[in-house]
């Protein structure tokens, strides 16, 4: 069966520090991968998605970037965090076509 791992679960970082959140998927190949952000416990905003290694689409201009160095690895990064980067970050994967998204457990990021 397929599983998705996302870490860390919680992170507190000072303004201006770098960020690296990692997500890996097991049990499937060539998944579509996604990073979402959920601010203030409300809606989910799509940040990045990837349909293959090295292929990244950005949905919202921002202080963050994403990379997909391996087929089942998706990384969310920032060189210098802003206060506004605080939020709950969710990684997800989906198969091809109209597949539903399967989410990781999320990372709660607090920028102080």
């Amino acid at each position, binding site marked *: 069966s397929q599983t998705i791992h996302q870490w860390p679960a919680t992170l507190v970082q000072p303004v201006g520090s770098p960020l690296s959140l990692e997500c890996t998927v097991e049990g499937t190949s060539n998944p*579509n991968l996604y990073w979402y952000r*959920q601010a203030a416990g409300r*809606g989910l905003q*799509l940040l990045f998605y990837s349909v293959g290694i090295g292929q990244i689409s950005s949905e919202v201009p921002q202080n963050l970037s994403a990379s997909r160095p391996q087929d089942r690895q998706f990384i969310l990064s920032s060189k210098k965090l802003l206060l506004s980067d605080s939020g709950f970050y969710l990684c997800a994967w*989906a198969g091809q076509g*109209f597949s*539903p*998204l*399967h989410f990781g457990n999320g990372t709660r990021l607090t920028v102080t």
Partner: protein
Amino acid sequence: AQTVTQSQPEMSVQEAETVTLSCTYDTSESNYYLFWYKQPPSRQMILVIRQEAYKQQNATENRFSVNFQKAAKSFSLKISDSQLGDTAMYFCALNQRSNKLIFGTGTLLAVQP
């Protein structure tokens, strides 16, 4: 533009009662999928139910069912025999050809004992 609208920020229901959560969407595509996700206090996103636009029959999963009105672009979720464990944020989502899910802003459902 593709949009998903959930006009009920919060709802409350008594245990064992039935509740319906509303969702409307806008898309220019003829084929797409609609989903309802549940996010309990643990914040884990859980798929509740899915509906393909080409299927006229409304999807059902145990106590959860949908009322899909394609012409009206409406996709409501009905929860029967509500249980305390149904307390969660519920998100409606649209998946089009691009396979990017667009989410609504959510409805916070509280099941009262």
